[in-house]
């Protein structure tokens, strides 16, 4: 399993952000849905090894990130796009992606080709020399995704990756997700159920720090039958599961 979580908890003071999440995941695209404050970002940050759990067991790529050596090996194979993407305004897109390729300790000979491939994957070849400060929000998001995939990660964690992308970009991005899902574990936190429907093999719904649903998109749609809240079948399933979890 690329991801094995057992009774994972994370508290911030008295606030329980993640409350006993257990999960096993191999290759595939996993959608992580949930309302604001459900704990999605905290869960992704723990899987990105930047936030240690308060308790519980976390194994990523068959390693325990609690120890420094294994944590480095996980990070070598990890791609991560945080919810709030920071960037260095004076860097070009190519600089930015190369910078992270170097931080991920990729072999130097592979770096130029990997950077070019990642930028091309996101359709930013013509913007490779543009400084980040000149890019739109959607373009910045694509640059962020490019840095996440530059090392061909085995575990790809994307927090709101399609925010700011136009419909055409979202379509090509979903294709990218499906492609990565063939060989890697991709976990996508999103509010956009269309993304889940189009790209994810499995979907997890979080509420109040817990996973309240884990199944395929079709199973989630089935849970919404007869439920009136929501415009699309997945939205109805989403609302129905949340309503059931809160009742």
């Amino acid at each position: 399993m690329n991801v094995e979580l057992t009774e994972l908890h994370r508290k911030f003071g008295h606030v329980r952000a993640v409350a006993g999440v257990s999960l096993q995941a191999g290759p595939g695209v996993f959608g992580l849905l949930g309302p604001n404050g459900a704990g999605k970002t905290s869960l992704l940050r723990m899987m990105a090894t930047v936030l240690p759990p308060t308790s519980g067991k976390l194994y990523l790529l068959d390693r325990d990130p609690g120890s420094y050596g294994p944590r480095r090996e996980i990070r070598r194979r990890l791609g991560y796009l945080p919810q709030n993407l920071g960037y260095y305004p004076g860097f070009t897109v190519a600089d930015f992606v190369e910078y992270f390729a170097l931080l991920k300790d990729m072999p130097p000979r592979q770096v130029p080709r990997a950077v070019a491939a990642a930028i091309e994957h996101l359709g930013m070849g013509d913007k490779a020399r543009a400084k980040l400060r000149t890019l739109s929000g959607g373009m910045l998001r694509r640059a962020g995704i490019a840095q996440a995939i530059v090392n061909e990660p085995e575990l790809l964690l994307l927090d709101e990756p399609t925010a700011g992308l136009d419909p055409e970009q979202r379509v090509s991005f979903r294709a990218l997700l499906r492609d990565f899902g063939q060989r890697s574990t991709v976990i996508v936190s999103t509010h956009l159920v269309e993304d889940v429907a189009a790209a994810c093999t499995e979907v997890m719904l979080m509420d109040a720090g817990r996973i309240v649903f884990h199944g395929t998109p079709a199973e989630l749609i089935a849970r919404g039958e007869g439920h009136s809240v929501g415009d699309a079948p997945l939205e109805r399933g989403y609302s129905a599961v949340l309503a059931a979890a809160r009742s």
Partner: protein
Amino acid sequence: MTATAAPVRAAPRQVPRVAPRNMTRLVWMELRRNTMPVVLPLIAVLFWFDSYRIAATMPPLWVERLYYILGQGHALVDFAPFVAGVAAWMGSRDGRRGMTDLVTATVRPRWEAQLATCAATVVCAVGSYLVVMAVTLGLLGRSIAWGGPPWWSVGAGAVGVAAFTSAGFALGAYFPGRFIAPVAAFGALFAMGTSSQIGFSSSGGWALILPTMSNGNFDKDAGLFYPFLPDVQIARVMFAAGVAVAAAGLLGLPASAGGPRLRRSAAVVTAAGVAAAVTAVALASTAQVGPNGAVIPALHDAASDRPILYTPVCGQAGIPVCVHPAYRSYLPDAQTALRPVVQELTGLPGAPVRATQVAAVFQAGPPPLTGPPTAAQLQVETIGSPPVLHLTLNAIALPGSFGMNTSGFIGQIRLQFVHAFVGAGGGSGNPAQQIVQAALLQDAGIPLAAQPNVLGQSPWALPSRGRGGGVAASYPRPISVAASRFAALPAAARHAWLAAHLAALRSGRVTLAQLP
């Protein structure tokens, strides 16, 4: 919970370590995108206004022209606030930009990545400093006839810039925020201001470690007759390097900086930097001021005590007058100053047969920047057989420095000569010596009424008789009357009296009644 049907992965492949080349590339990227070059024009303008503009008006000797820039550390004063501020801005970059999660989730330890950014920032700052110094030395050196700049001082300044940059970066990394840059800049300015105040008032000891402290290590004839003594500068390099290293080490102490081994290394680096800085301060506190500058016994190289060989530049003023080649441009002034006095005293017992320049000596304590030099500094003497007039030209403020002009400089040389000749020694002399001195100076072209001013720029100023003390504007009447009478004598009569009474005059045994 649902599990996928995917098989368990095989043991992960081991990727070879590629750190060194990646690190070089990281530093190169940080260099290309560094913020430091943005502020360089501002630093250059400030440096020109605050340091270069003043230095260019100073006498054409390395030690004089670089006194403001390196001796009193104005170059560092100009650079430090800016480089510390920009470095803090760079150090706080990840925190300000919300990049912390993103960079933490990478393989390379945060400490290494931060060191790459810090190294690039230091390279930019120090490189800028060195470029500015190279241009400055090139421009200032065009009119300097002899010698070379004090390279150790240049080096100490460069390491000082590195220390401020590194410390600013660490501050920014620990306290990321948009206000950390001005805080760091103000802190550096405050540190340099405090350093200047201590440097002006202290005379040695631990304060020699301060980059703005010129007392005892950057003054008078340094680097001309003897090499610039590097002792204090070596201690300063050690101190600044220690600060820079300690700041770099501090970056590696937080838990997020890397693994346990790396953090232990960071702690060792920090401790080594602190130890170097403390050792440097301890060494500086053992300094003693010798004749050629401050000596730190543990760092002193005896080779620095060997005089520098040079061929003097000579001219005639009734007697041969020889000066150090660095003072070539002052030889005409020295000749002008000595000619009338030599003409008057030629043939008298003890009259010098030649004049030669000797090195001004260092003395413990702060230099009298706003007052006259001390008698110990001047050391003008006519000694030996045949007697030779030893002139310490740079103990007098040279024309162009500290408000001195050419006529004042000439007057001081004449005063030194006559004062030494009448045997007044380190003090003002007894009344008979003062009267003869005044008469000889008048005959040499300095009117009696102007002499109190000339004396006021020397260690032998006339004390005021008023309540407030200070310097008198005129001689006491008995002195001026007797001096006028002596000066009015025919030259032959004056010469004859001096020939008969010179030995007694010098030994202080001539009374007022014995004067003609």
